[in-house]
């Protein structure tokens, strides 16, 4: 699961694995609303879930995305 999540993140934001831990909207040029929406759609597809708006707002880093996914029963 972790690897799927990592790959997806790298793919959407066009970054390498070693950039993941520091990935936030402020550090990544590619993290705009288009890419954020894409990430949300991709995560919902991949893990077969549907986020609440509050959770969409929470996903502002690689780490926080993982925390939110855990709430939806995704085990890393």
């Amino acid at each position, binding site marked *: 699961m972790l690897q799927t999540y990592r790959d997806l993140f790298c793919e959407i934001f066009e970054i390498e694995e070693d950039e993941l831990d520091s990935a936030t909207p402020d550090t990544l040029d590619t993290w*705009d609303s288009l*890419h954020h929406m894409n990430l949300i759609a991709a995560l919902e597809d991949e893990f077969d879930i549907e986020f609440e708006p509050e959770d969409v*707002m929470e996903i502002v880093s690689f780490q926080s995305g993982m925390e939110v996914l855990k709430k939806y029963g995704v085990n890393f």
Partner: protein
Amino acid sequence: MSFLPSNRDSPEKIAALDDKGGVITYGSLSVLLDEFGATVPSRALVFCLCANDCGSLAGYLALYESGLVPLLLDVSTDDTLLENLITTYSPEFLWCPDAYCEKEPIVSAFGYKLVRLSDSSPHMSDQLSFLLTTSGSTGSPKLVRHKYGNLEHNARVVATTFGLTRSERGLCQLPMHYTMGLNAINSLLYAGSTVLLSNSSLMSKEFWQFFKDHEPTSFTGVPYSYEILIKMKLLKIEAAHLKILASGGGKMPEENFKKLAANAVETGRKFFSTYGATETSARMSYLSPEKAILKTGSIGKPFPGGDLFLVGPDGSEIEAPDVEGELIYRGDNVTLGYARKKEDLILGDTFEGEYRTGDVAYRDKDGDFFVVGRMSRFLKLFGHRVSLDASERLVADRFGTDCACSGTDKKMAVFVTNADILKDVTKFLAETTGLPKTAFKAYFVEEFVRTDSGKINYKALDASVIEAAG
């Protein structure tokens, strides 16, 4: 001419506030206008770096009203692109955040300053009032030349048609350097309303906190804004204060149009589907809100003072309903024309009050218009106009391959004759346009099917995509 309400009897009234805590009253704005008028030379070319905040708004208004010719640009414009624009047009001044450069300020306000870039301005036509880049064309130095009265006209008709009043609090999240974002702001100022400037993503806590704190009465967005807002459950939350939802800047997916129209009926809101272009200083037409539930996707009729009509392939006007033709607009908001270099700033009115939209449309028996496609080869990916021909040239130059682009407003299909570069091509186009990689899909073809005249047969290519998708 001015956007600002002529009755300056309530100087305490808030003209704008932003999500960083900035506030401007109508009174302080008028003081600032006087200060700028006395300090800066009129008829100079100025580049304004913009975010949706009080400093950007104050600078644009004060410089415009002082007779300078502003070009509004995104503050996060890539350095190379900005350098390129400065070389191409030689502006005399730059309006930028204080921290943007070390140069000495000539005037400053709300964390922004005016600095000098060169000794003089290019020669400019007396009619020239204002400049914007053509929407979405990234990297292109092509500008739209506005004349005095364009912005004012559109602000007035939109304010009047939407019924904006001084008690309106309009949430402006579209960038102010984008024609419709600017028109939303100008219309509110014209009506003496309060502009709520947000610089935050529609998916951020900051945006929704700002939304809660200031309870906007209206919102203007592009179709993609509504895609996000629907995902964020805007139509499900309690927000009785929100009375007007306006959209424009591309065709909204039918499903979302229907959701917005149904929501308007349920809540008593007004949903305005509008149609516009940078070349017409924003909006040309709107669908009467009470028709939204009946006419999914319609752009309605022209705003007062404008005229929309259809022309067939032989150049004659189409009067009959349900017949497709090119959509053409006439009105006081039609701009002067384009500029590609500083010498073009002296040009007069090349559009002569008429703008050929390049969109194919028909009108129904009630006279409401529906856009069905485009004459020229553009896609509108995530609301950004992306030229298929330019994309073809970019890929061909970068990879030394033959390339053909087609597709839909959801996804561009990029065909190349080299199977090894498919991933690189999508990555390259995503980087060049600033759009997500998912907006592009690359396909390998051994060779292109061509028409008798030697042009690429796009129909055959599209058919091969459908086949590949199974």
